[in-house]
């Protein structure tokens, strides 16, 4: 495992319509570290996540994933290293059956049939959804879909997990079991969320973003205690 799987230096990104989404973001994540990315809507969190996978490419600055610079030449390697889980599972689960979806990444890595089956089973085991192999994604509940969506990237055996709003739209029980699942996963993780209670419970380090910049970066306990900081950036301090 690389000592610093995610390295972001002075990243600047502007959408084609001129909107400056990232204005010089610098961030480094250590191996095995789990960090929270918080901030108001439109702060640039989702844009940053898409950069990690090379889906959006910056106008200036650089990103390294496990020592590989994210550029067109390394794109296929980088995408195998970074497992990106989107907010809406209906966007992530595009295949007719759960098996097809979880096997998608491994098939693109050109693995053998046996290895693909092994990976699919291991990924479904990891999210405790082994029995769902032959199911149709459409008929699952939101919580089940979220788990399968995570399995679809686990089957690629990524070094880094990147999740966009994993607990959004879940009922308390599904949210609780998802948090327990995230706790079990050993990978380095970057989680963009508004769920500060989950952040406090699960993620030791928090990065606050606003207006395309990193406003604060430090231990979660310290950042969540700074009520003025949270209020200034569209967040709300936890009551207890």
């Amino acid at each position: 495992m690389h000592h610093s799987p995610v390295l972001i230096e002075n990243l600047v990104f502007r959408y084609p319509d001129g909107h400056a989404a990232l204005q010089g973001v610098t961030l480094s994540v250590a191996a095995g570290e789990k960090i929270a990315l918080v901030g108001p809507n439109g702060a640039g969190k989702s844009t940053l996540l898409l950069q990690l996978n090379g889906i959006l490419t910056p106008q200036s600055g650089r990103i390294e994933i496990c020592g590989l610079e994210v550029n067109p030449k390394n794109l296929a390697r980088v995408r195998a290293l970074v497992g990106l889980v989107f907010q809406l599972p209906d966007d992530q689960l595009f295949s007719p059956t759960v098996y097809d979806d979880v096997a998608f990444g491994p098939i693109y890595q050109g693995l053998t049939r046996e290895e693909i089956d092994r990976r699919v089973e291991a990924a479904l085991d990891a999210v405790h959804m082994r029995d769902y192999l032959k199911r149709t994604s459409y008929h699952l509940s939101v919580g089940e879909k979220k788990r399968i969506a995570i399995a679809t990237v686990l089957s690629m055996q990524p070094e880094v997990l990147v999740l966009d709003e994993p607990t959004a739209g879940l009922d308390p029980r599904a949210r609780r079991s998802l948090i327990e699942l995230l706790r079990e996963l050993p990978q380095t993780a970057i989680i963009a969320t508004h769920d500060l209670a989950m952040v406090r419970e699960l993620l030791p380090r928090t990065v606050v973003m606003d207006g395309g910049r990193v406003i604060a970066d430090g231990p979660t306990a310290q950042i969540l205690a700074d009520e003025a900081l949270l209020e200034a950036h569209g967040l709300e301090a936890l009551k207890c």
Partner: protein
Amino acid sequence: MSGANSLTPFLAGSSLIHALDARVKVPLTLAFILTVSFLPFGVWPVYVLLLALTVSAALLSEIGLARFLRRSLLALPFALAALPLLFTIPGEALARFSLFGLTLTLSGPGLVRFASIAVKSWLSVQAAVLMAATTDLPEMLLALRALKLPRLLAAVIGLMWRYLFVLVDEAGRLLRAREARSGSREGAPRGGGLAWRARVAGGMAGSLLLRSLERSDRVYTAMLARGYDGEVRSLPHPPLSARAWGILAAGLLLLALILFLSRWMVA
């Protein structure tokens, strides 16, 4: 959920027909339809033979004979297209009608032609209905790929099937949202003018299209994130069992024999 259930013809089951490999069912269904379309007109015993085949397969599939026959009524509109044949084929006159000043002559050969076409389209639809009711779409796609359907086409059909349900749900939510705000005051007529309502419906269709476009963008992004590079890849199929090959060969042979029989009857 309700949307999906009324959309898919598939009825889950564990009958012999359900268990049969889709790579046997799909080619046999296609061969059946092809055989039916090659049959000459007016070979009634052969039609009855084929009807016995589809009905016994339907009975074996345990999907319920009534439901099977109801679904096969889908063939009716096709038969309607053949209706003019009743009056346009020359031959001995059976009856004459007068309609809007037009004299129509019902001819014997016309009647045979029309009835044959109606029965043949009904039989073809029966075969298709039976296959669709006993084969889930992912399996059907596998079978089509085994029949050398281009992968891209198979992938597009798969995506369409997957998102059809999502779209129907989305449309359902839009309709519900409109319904929820379509109240009326006491004594006043409900709903605005026709033009206004048409504009609302147009806006809904437009927003459904936009949402689908945006979703397709997000789906594409999700595919890219997992390594998609523009080429559709899929797993090789497991080999077909000897028994399945046997059933396929026997079925094709039977259909060839029936075709031969019908030709012999005409000659």
